[in-house]
């Protein structure tokens, strides 16, 4: 079933700093990321036969340009690229792009794929972005009339999770502390000041069990990565990163329809991805976990089998996910600290997994890391994805 194993490799990446850059056009972030990825991989740009831009929220016209092959023209690949197509699943676009690229390369339908994301939700008009993220993914007939909005997803999950597991708000808040610890070491991150649990909890209460500092911050950013055949990767300069397993579950469209907001689809997605990769949770060196709100990394740590049910909060509060800890988690700082660039929040987490496995993470490098899991979630945390990546061929 896992025919792709040993046939596909990630060979390069690029990323621009995340933050508020009103004068940096979205296209500039995309081009800079693509250029860096190409140079980083050492691949000739003419070898790229497929460009896969994911979706952009801030500007419909720019998004359409991405769909309509603007990057092919900008990168001087007219007549060379065979397919330009968007692969878009909101926050889980990272996993979706890699899954699609892996399948196309394994099937021989593409050889070298450039995956790219850029967005500008940080310097787009604030009210517009608030309204956009307040309404997107919320059923207009069944949830909007009651004043529910996307920013409430984390609160709803946290409250039920605390009820079922006895986890405290202090433990949930400690996820933000862990994210800031890593972001302090990440020059591309937006919020690099370290915080204490007390500082997280004493910020303004937005909703039940959710303070301001437990919310993600919208930002501008961009990132890219290149996927090619394992054969081609042999002659390139970076240590190749191999996709080893994929698992996913879509568990709701409307938050009210999820059967278990304290687990989501992670137990099933992890089981599937581990079986494909031939690993267990004990083999994981780094957990590059998608955050959004601090409750989700706790749910994910448990779904991944890294922590027992109800123990993730204690695990994080006890500093196990910090630099130097037992299980380095979301080592770029995630959306809570690097910044939330719409679909790019997840792409940044995937790029960080690639960076770590290539041994290029600078001050935050996890020494000797061989196996990383990358997770992602899209929309109102509608889906749960687990990708296993490795430095070594199976």
């Amino acid at each position, binding site marked *: 079933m896992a025919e792709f194993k040993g046939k596909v490799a990630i060979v390069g990446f690029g990323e621009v700093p995340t933050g508020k850059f009103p004068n940096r056009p979205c296209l500039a972030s995309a081009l800079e990321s693509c250029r860096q990825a190409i140079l980083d991989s050492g691949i000739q740009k003419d070898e790229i036969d497929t460009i896969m831009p994911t979706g952009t929220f801030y500007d419909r016209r720019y998004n359409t340009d991405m769909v309509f092959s603007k990057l092919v023209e900008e990168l001087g690949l007219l007549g060379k690229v065979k397919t330009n197509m968007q692969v878009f699943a909101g926050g889980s676009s990272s996993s979706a792009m890699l899954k699609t690229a892996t399948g196309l390369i394994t099937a021989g339908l593409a050889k070298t794929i450039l995956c790219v994301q850029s967005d500008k939700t940080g310097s787009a008009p604030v009210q517009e972005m608030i*309204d956009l993220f307040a309404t997107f993914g919320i*059923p207009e*007939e069944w949830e909007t009339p*009651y*004043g529910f909005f996307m920013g409430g997803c984390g609160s709803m999950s946290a409250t*039920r999770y605390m*009820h079922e597991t006895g986890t405290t708000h202090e433990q949930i808040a400690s996820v933000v502390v862990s994210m800031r610890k890593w972001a302090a070491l990440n020059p591309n991150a937006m919020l690099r000041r370290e915080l204490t649990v007390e500082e997280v909890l004493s910020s*303004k209460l*937005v909703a039940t069990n959710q303070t301001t500092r437990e919310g993600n911050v919208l930002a501008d950013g961009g990132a890219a990565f290149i996927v090619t055949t394992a054969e081609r990767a042999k002659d390139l300069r970076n240590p190749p990163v191999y996709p080893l397993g994929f698992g996913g579950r879509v568990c709701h469209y409307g938050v*009210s329809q999820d059967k278990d907001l304290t687990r989501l689809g992670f137990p099933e997605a992890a089981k599937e991805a581990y079986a494909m990769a031939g690993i267990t949770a004990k083999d994981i060196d780094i957990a590059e976990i998608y955050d959004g709100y601090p409750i989700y990394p706790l749910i994910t740590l448990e779904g991944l089998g890294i922590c027992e049910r109800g123990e993730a909060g204690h695990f994080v509060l006890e500093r196990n996910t910090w630099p130097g800890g037992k299980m380095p988690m979301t080592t770029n700082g995630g959306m809570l600290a690097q910044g939330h660039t719409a679909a790019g929040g997840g792409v940044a987490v995937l790029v960080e997994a690639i960076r770590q496995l290539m041994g290029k993470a600078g001050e935050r490098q996890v020494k000797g890391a061989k196996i990383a899991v990358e997770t992602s979630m899209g929309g109102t945390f509608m889906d749960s994805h687990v990708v296993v990546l490795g430095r070594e061929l199976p």
Partner: protein
Amino acid sequence: MMDYKKPLPKMSPWSAPFWDGCRRHELLIQKCQDCEAFNFYPKMYCANCLSSNLDWVKTSGLGKVYTHMTVYAYQPTEFTDDVPYVVAIVELDEGVRMMTNVVGCPPDEVQCEMRVKVVFEKATDEITLAKFKPAG
């Protein structure tokens, strides 16, 4: 006429009987006549077997809070005057879940698993919303 400023449900053609029910103070859900599955929110086809043979049944209007949040800030603009307000996911005794508001008690009294009963709030002549209050 009362001026209702908050967002009204954007109705789908197959959900009209639900809203008609709310106006009569009856909480209706769909029941598939082929596989007997309950469906909420209303579906065009049964989400269990894709049958179009869906009928409407009256629920007890009783259920329990699965989870809840009190909104203190960053609320959608139209809800500014309501802050703090309680949004909750209620599981009806029939097994389906719905997003709603819990009213009729101070927000900090709302708990997971709390028993609740439907209460109807008229928004406009056309729309009455199904909300919940503590039961008994």
